[in-house]
């Protein structure tokens, strides 16, 4: 997913008023802490543990109700402070993290990812009885629906609804959701999958039984031309949650969707607030993934990260029952939060799926030595400092997130972890070898404070190493459109990428498959390398997830060391505070934030 986290602390207030206050109290304690670069990765905070493997659960583990969270009690109202209000409520339109974190409270799909009390992850059957039964080497997947499952209007969920939900993702008006399943079914890349069912199910056309089969009311069979080992993960995305065949109002469904999960919308005022109440047609006995302890969710929007962090730090009134899914601790408050034990115990920390990289346009910067010089010269600390320091991320050596299976700790071919300030001398040597001192680099960044600040360090360090940097900026909103154009004319630009589920297959192919270069595609560095292309095809055929994970990481090594069209910068981290009367706020690596299915309200004594 190319949605990138935004952390931005914009403060209102007059400069002069502030200076007045400062005249009275012009001292501050030191930032404290160890100097940068000390410790393993320059991150003073503990990282999440590396994931061993994710299991696909069988029928027994997929039976509800969900395992109880220790000490949890049902009831109460949870307040959620969010920055962006969802633009879409139709599950088929939901992809971004901020939207899906809220939608997960309301929508269910065939599968779901569950984190248990020991912190182990498994893909469980959600509306289906298990995580799926593969046959024919993973080309055919069979799902059986549970009994006693209903939409929020009381109508039962049948295989016809599953067929409808899949078919409608081909409809032309659904453009924002994920496209994995459609591409697999149509066995095509890009947007060509739409030709399989151009109008969706609405004109009476349906997918043939050779693609999607629903032999009876409770059975669904997917047929793919290629083995698709990751199907259970994909089906856990909110984008593939179920939409009823009868209640589907097409475009209007985006305003008033039905729910299949524990909550329904009572009131939604876009950009202001959303109230969720219990869905009386949700039966906990069918749901192995959601505990749904609170009775009510009061979600408010428009909170800057600064605002939400301050409120959660203060922990007053209703804010004691508050948390946030997507508003990380802002850089201004980070030192205070990290140094105070009171905040530490109300802090959930972990990695986000995103890896920040500096993409090098392979069509323009063709000399590997020059690209290596860029890698050596880049100041990781300059970029990460601008993006929140140790709370913003952790220096990266490779392109694969520490969350993903197969990740090798300490992989760092260019010695960036020990030398986050960059190695200008080594870079200059390489430039001299390549006879390219004074090489001109067109560098584009966006105008947000953080990126402008990171750009200062990047430009400075590259020029120090002997490059001539021609720096330009574009507004943040059009940044990815600008760098997504094949003939963009730029040499280096930052790009972030996050996996869609816990598999490197959602990281390497979209970014490095040379056959996918086109305007708006995600191969931002425009690399077209024969070995990468053939390796992608080869590894995709591997059915053993652990073996595939290792092979993906090997391919990542080849890309970083021998191709180097994206210089890894840092792994994004997420730090979310919650109020003192919120329990079960555990960090979920799959979601990249607090696990909303496990939280509960700590009831007042007496």
């Amino acid at each position, binding site marked *: 997913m190319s949605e990138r986290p935004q952390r931005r602390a914009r*403060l209102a*207030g007059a*400069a*002069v008023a*502030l*200076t*007045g206050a*400062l*005249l009275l*109290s*012009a*001292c*501050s*304690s*030191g*930032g*404290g*802490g*160890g*100097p*940068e*670069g*000390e410790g393993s990765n*320059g*991150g*003073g905070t503990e990282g999440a543990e590396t994931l061993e493997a994710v299991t696909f659960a069988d029928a027994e583990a997929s039976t509800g109700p969900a395992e109880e969270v220790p000490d949890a009690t049902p009831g109460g109202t949870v307040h959620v402070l969010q920055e962006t209000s969802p633009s879409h409520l139709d599950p088929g339109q939901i992809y971004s993290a901020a939207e899906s974190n809220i939608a997960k409270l309301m929508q269910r799909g065939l599968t779901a990812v569950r984190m248990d009390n020991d912190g182990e992850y498994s893909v469980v059957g959600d509306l289906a009885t298990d995580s799926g039964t593969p046959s024919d080497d993973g080309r055919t997947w069979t799902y059986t629906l549970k009994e006693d499952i209903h939409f929020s209007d009381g109508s039962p969920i049948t295989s016809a609804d599953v067929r409808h939900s899949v078919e409608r993702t081909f409809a032309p008006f659904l453009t924002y959701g994920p496209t994995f399943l459609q591409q697999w079914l149509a066995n095509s890349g890009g947007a060509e999958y739409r030709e399989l069912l151009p109008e969706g199910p609405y004109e009476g056309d349906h997918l043939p039984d050779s693609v999607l089969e629903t032999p009876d009311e409770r059975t669904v069979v997917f047929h793919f031309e290629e083995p698709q080992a990751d199907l259970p993960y994909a089906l856990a995305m909110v984008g593939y949650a179920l939409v009823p065949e009868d209640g589907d109002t097409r475009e209007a469904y985006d305003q008033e969707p039905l729910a299949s999960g524990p909550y329904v919308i009572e009131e939604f005022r876009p950009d202001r607030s959303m109230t969720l109440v219990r869905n009386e047609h949700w039966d906990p006995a069918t749901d192995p993934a959601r505990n749904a302890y609170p009775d009510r969710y009061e979600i408010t929007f428009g909170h800057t990260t600064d605002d939400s962090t301050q409120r959660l730090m203060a922990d007053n009134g209703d804010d004691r029952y508050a948390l946030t899914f997507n508003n990380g601790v802002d*850089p*201004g*408050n*980070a*030192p*205070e939060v*990290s140094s105070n034990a009171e905040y530490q115990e109300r802090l959930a920390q972990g990695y986000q799926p995103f890896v920040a990289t500096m993409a090098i346009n392979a069509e323009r910067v063709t000399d590997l030595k020059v690209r290596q010089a860029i890698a050596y010269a880049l*100041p990781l*600390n*300059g970029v*990460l*400092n*601008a993006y*929140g*320091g*140790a*709370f913003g991320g952790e220096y990266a050596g490779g392109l694969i997130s520490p969350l993903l299976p197969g990740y090798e700790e300490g992989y760092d071919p260019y010695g960036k972890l020990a030398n986050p*300030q960059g190695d200008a001398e080594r870079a200059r040597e390489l430039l001299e070898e390549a006879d390219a001192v004074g090489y001109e680099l*067109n560098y584009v960044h966006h*105008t947000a*404070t953080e990126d*402008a*600040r990171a750009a*200062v*360090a990047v*430009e*400075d360090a590259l020029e120090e190493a002997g490059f001539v*940097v*021609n*720096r*330009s*900026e*574009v507004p943040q909103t059009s940044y990815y459109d600008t760098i997504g154009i094949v003939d963009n*004319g730029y040499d280096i630009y930052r790009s972030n990428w996050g996996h869609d589920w816990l598999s490197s297959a959602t990281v390497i192919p979209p970014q490095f498959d040379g056959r996918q270069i086109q305007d708006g595609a995600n191969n931002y560095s425009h690399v077209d390398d024969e070995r990468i292309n053939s390796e992608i095809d080869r590894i995709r055929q591997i059915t053993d997830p652990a073996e595939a994970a290792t092979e993906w990481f090997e391919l990542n090594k080849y890309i970083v060391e021998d191709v180097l069209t994206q210089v890894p910068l840092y792994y994004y981290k997420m730090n979310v505070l919650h109020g003192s009367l919120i329990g079960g706020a555990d960090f979920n690596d799959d979601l990249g934030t607090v696990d909303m299915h496990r939280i509960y309200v700590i009831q007042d004594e007496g």
Partner: protein
Amino acid sequence: MSSDTQVATELVGRSPGQLMWRRFRRDRVGVVSGCVVLFFFAVGILAPVISWLYGKDPQTRYGQIEPGLLNEFGYPVKPNGGIDGEFWFGLEPFLGRDVLTQLVYGIRTSLLIALAVTVLATLTAILLGITAGYLGGKADFLISRFIDLLMAFPNQLFFVAFLPIVTTLFVDPREETPTYVRVVSIIVVLWVLGWMTLGRILRGATMALREREFVEAAKVSGASPWRIIRKELLPNVVSPMLVQATYMLPNFVTTAAALSFLGVGLVEPTPDWGRMFAIGAEVYRADLTYMFFPGVAMVVFVVAFNLLGDSVRDAFDPKTNR
């Protein structure tokens, strides 16, 4: 002896300028604030010398290059914003640059911009204000309505909206915008909306003077309008002009700073006074000290300049003495 000299000096004829200077020198507040203002200009002009003597420059990211100066969040490790014998005013959070040289160079850019705008605005005001006042009639009508029109513009909104546009007018978005283009566009935008008050004052003053005998006499004796404006009118409007200009300059400094604070002024890596406030406002909870030096400097500068303006007015026009 002393009484003799006093008598002697009193008999010496003095120009209004000399009188003003004598009165100004007697005003202690005026002299002190004048010195402060001069000090700021000296700092601005001598910024490279200060940087050379002090051994730091505003561009180097000391905190990022030398380990041990910034912590893992990008804030100075040492207390009080990292102030020590090496970095007298501390270190900038995140980028780790030296605050003293940043401030000195920031003052330099701010004063350069404010001075340029003041000069341009004053010249425009003289040209249009005196023309309107002296010619009267249609010319006066047109110029006055034009002034009204410009005054009706919401200033801040206009600046925020137009600065990015003006910049892109001159530069291909693919190319790095040269710093001078940004500086020129800020000067132009501030100038366009900065001259009207003075223009009106000068128009009014000129209209009053136009009917005076000495102007009539000059007309009768056949002096050209250009000569009348230059020799008869201008010397008589010098005092409102100078007073107004001393109020305008600090005003332009703060306006330019406000624009940088809002993010439409000068951008990194040009050192800028206003942007230091934006950073200060962002980091004040963890690093309060950062705001101290630019803040105090700005307050002192604006207060001194305004007091200087008062003193200049008092010196020109003793009748308004409090």
